[in-house]
């Protein structure tokens, strides 16, 4: 296997130039970052504009404002009317949308490469010339509330995640939902949005990422032409948002109408950039994959198949974010077993990580998967652009991605045990359980003939 891993690494290095082309990095005079990665396989391009603003930037009372503003960014500028952005891109054969996370707000277009300039022109236009109209806002904020109902209010696991985050974090802004609390959406005003837009939407707070069938220097010229004249602004420095020590396990039991119990657990952990020692986040990544790096990993093998107490079980850790995050575990019990048993089993798995060293074979499996994963990732322009955009926007820089495989290869079984001992401890833990309330479903009632109305055979 070791030989195989070596072989795969060699293979990765031998990938055709087009497939693993380097990123070209530029900065415009107004401070806007431009990152271009050629991928010549098809005459298409992904263009993404990333802003350094998201829910973790929001003060109390204004939760959800980054996402609400993202919705309003489609509602017109001084030059283009509401919805016109989408219509123009659509008529060019393009896809466009946007997404908001804790650390970023990003807008993207995917199109045939000859239309890239039009996309850049439109993005540049709405960076500084958005028109925030009162009537449009009144309708769109209702759309956002419907989105909240869809994602959270009526979704038991969505509720659990929201409640979990809210109690797990004492101070970190990661305690708030990206979509915002309903009460804050109810009280959001057009003036709030205008102020938020003025504060964060400027070229020196943005990164343009372009991946596709392009020449980096041509993209730079286009970026200069359309974004280059936009004025920069004073971007306020965020106060540090350190999470204080927890001093003991935290629990919440969420009781909502549901059919299936569920448990979600999280240990506070460092990330790349915040860790005491540089290798810690990589050791945590390995640890997450020891538990849940596929069907052969421990959670599937021991809990889903071995003891059979869980219908599903997962572990997840993200080493890339602006602020320290969590190592998450989750599970759904099988019939005849309880969430308490699943929780105990998950804790036992973590205790095992603290007490014993992982196998070399597990480590090798994880590295092989990571190497293959890099090749597979190159099949998607969007995934490549996402990786660059996230890393740049959280402040680590896109180069981190290139160092990832080497960092994982350097992780030792002792380091994996050490991070488990340091961070995966009860004082650091939050547990949320879902206790289903009855759903009181009633039989369907037909208000006009349906069942009896069938004709033919």
């Amino acid at each position, binding site marked *: 296997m070791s030989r195989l891993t070596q072989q795969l690494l060699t*293979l990765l290095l031998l990938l055709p130039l087009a497939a693993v082309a380097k990123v070209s990095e530029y900065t415009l005079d107004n401070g806007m970052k431009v990152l271009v990665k050629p991928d010549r396989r098809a005459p298409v391009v992904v263009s993404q504009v990333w802003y350094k603003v998201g829910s973790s930037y929001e003060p109390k009372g204004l939760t959800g404002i980054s996402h609400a503003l993202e919705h309003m960014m489609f509602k017109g500028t001084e030059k283009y009317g509401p919805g016109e952005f989408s219509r123009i891109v659509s008529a060019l054969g393009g896809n466009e949308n946007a997404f908001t996370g804790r650390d970023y707000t990003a807008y993207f277009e*995917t199109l045939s490469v000859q239309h890239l300039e039009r996309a850049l022109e439109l993005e540049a236009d709405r960076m500084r010339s958005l028109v925030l109209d009162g009537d449009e806002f009144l309708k*769109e904020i209702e759309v956002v509330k419907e989105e909240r109902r869809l994602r959270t209010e009526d979704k038991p696991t969505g509720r659990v995640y929201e409640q979990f985050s809210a109690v797990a974090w004492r101070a970190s802004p990661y305690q708030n939902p990206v979509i915002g609390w309903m009460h804050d959406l109810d009280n959001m005003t057009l003036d709030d949005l205008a102020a938020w837009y003025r504060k964060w939407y400027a070229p020196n707070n943005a990164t343009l990422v372009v991946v596709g069938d392009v020449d980096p220097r041509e993209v730079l010229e286009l970026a200069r032409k359309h974004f280059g004249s936009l004025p920069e602004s004073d971007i306020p420095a965020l106060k540090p948002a350190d999470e204080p020590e927890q001093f003991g396990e935290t629990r919440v039991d969420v009781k909502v*109408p549901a059919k299936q119990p569920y448990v979600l657990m999280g240990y506070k952990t460092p990330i790349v950039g915040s860790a005491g020692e540089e290798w810690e986040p990589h050791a945590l990544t390995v640890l997450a994959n020891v538990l849940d790096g596929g069907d052969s990993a421990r959670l599937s093998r021991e809990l889903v*198949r071995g003891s059979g107490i869980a219908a599903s079980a997962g572990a997840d850790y993200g080493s890339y974010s602006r602020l320290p995050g969590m190592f998450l575990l989750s599970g759904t019990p099988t019939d005849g077993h309880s969430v308490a048993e699943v929780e105990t089993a998950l804790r036992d798995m973590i205790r095992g990580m603290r007490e014993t060293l992982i196998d070399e074979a597990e480590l090798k499996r994880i590295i092989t998967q990571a190497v293959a994963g890099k090749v597979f990732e190159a099949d998607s322009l969007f995934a490549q652009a996402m990786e660059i955009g996230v890393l740049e926007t959280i402040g680590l820089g896109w180069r981190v991605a290139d160092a990832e495989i080497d960092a994982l290869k350097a992780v030792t079984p002792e380091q994996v045990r050490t991070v488990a001992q340091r961070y995966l401890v009860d004082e650091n833990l939050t547990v949320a359980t879902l206790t289903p309330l009855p759903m009181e479903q009633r039989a369907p009632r037909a208000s006009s003939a349906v069942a009896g109305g069938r004709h033919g055979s």
Partner: protein
Amino acid sequence: MAAELITAGAVHQARQPLDAFTGQLGLRPLNGKRGLLAWAMLAVVLAWCGLAEAGPKIESWQTERGSKVLFVNAPDLPMVDVRVVFDAGSARDIKLPGLARITNSLLTEGAGDWDANALALRVEERGIILGNGSLRDMAWVSVRSLTDPEVLEVALDTTAVVLKSPRFDTDAVERVRQQLQIGLRSSLQSPSSVAKRRFFHTLYADHPYAHDPGGEEVSLADISVEDIKRFHRRYYVAANAVIAIVGAVDRAQAEQIAERLTGELPTGQHAPALPEVPPVSGGELRESFPSSQSHIYVGQSGMARHDPDYFALYVGNHVLGGGGLVSTLGEEVRNKRGLSYSVYSYFSPMRMEGPFLMVAQTKNDQAEQALEVMRETLARFIEQGPDGKELEEAKQNLIGGFPLRISSNSQIVEYLSMMGFYDYPLDWLDSLPAKLEAVTAEQVRDAFGRRINAAAGIAVIVGGSSG
């Protein structure tokens, strides 16, 4: 579960995932090697000319045992994607709903000499991704591997055994049965899943498309190991299989791959024809649910894969509700009135007539209003058809976006599976732009007028009682 990411436009994806146009991103393989410069120049020429893009070069043949193969050479990345599709979806398990799904799920839970643990380890320690899935028409096994000979060898060897000799061990059967039962229960926590299930039951009644591929509580409990083995013997046979291959392998290697995967399957027989979908008269069905929103599914029987009205209905629907926010429904329900986050319509063409559906969700006290707006919008569309500008822009989106939909290996392998499964001609992708271009407003109006009846549709509303 981790990163929370939410978007402006609702992503209403892949109903039947192999619908004609569901892709997003990705690679048009050009043949052979090329100097970077030459390739760049070629790309520039294509770009400047704005030529209608041709699809990938598809090759096709039959294996010795009678499986149809579709292959595209994509040399740029050292990887290969293979998908083996069987006519073994839930349309084949009408007596025991869920049998097709449980059989398909069990293929990767132990095969040949390997139990589930050994099988998972065997692929994952080489970075291979083995997958499976089943819907109403299709059931499939997919594999993604690096082209490194040692790795690919294991990928193919394992997949062949998974297809031919799944073990169906008792403990695996019970485990997967539980997982499907719990999956079913979880889906019944969702008003949208409940509404969709109800819609299909109402529309298809006794037809094999009526029940959900995930099965029913009672039938899942009743399925025996013998049922599963019988289902596998009947449907996982060479004559009932289509193989799609995309990646950095040449024709000779692709032929070996195809023989390798299905060469030892019994020839068997293709699944029999499905019954015609009988007509149904419309009505409204309301179901109370402890949710703050009501989910609305309105629709009727739509079209089959080889429908003569396919392009007129497809393009027409793009104007009506297929183009996301840039559609009539998006405009009326969301943009003008702020009623719903996600509103759309679609045809889901299957072997037999799949449904035509309009979908939205809104807080309970607005459900009647939303339903009315959706129905009025449809009635007006049937009456008037698209205007010239709307139609032109829809066509521009579909035709101009064509290169995007065939630009990654993962997209192309899905297209190949779909084309092979539904017996499309090999030039189908190439011919799409011209066929889309040829659609006229009058054809759309005529097709919708004949096929869609706004008054006769089925409406299912699942939500809180204040509506």
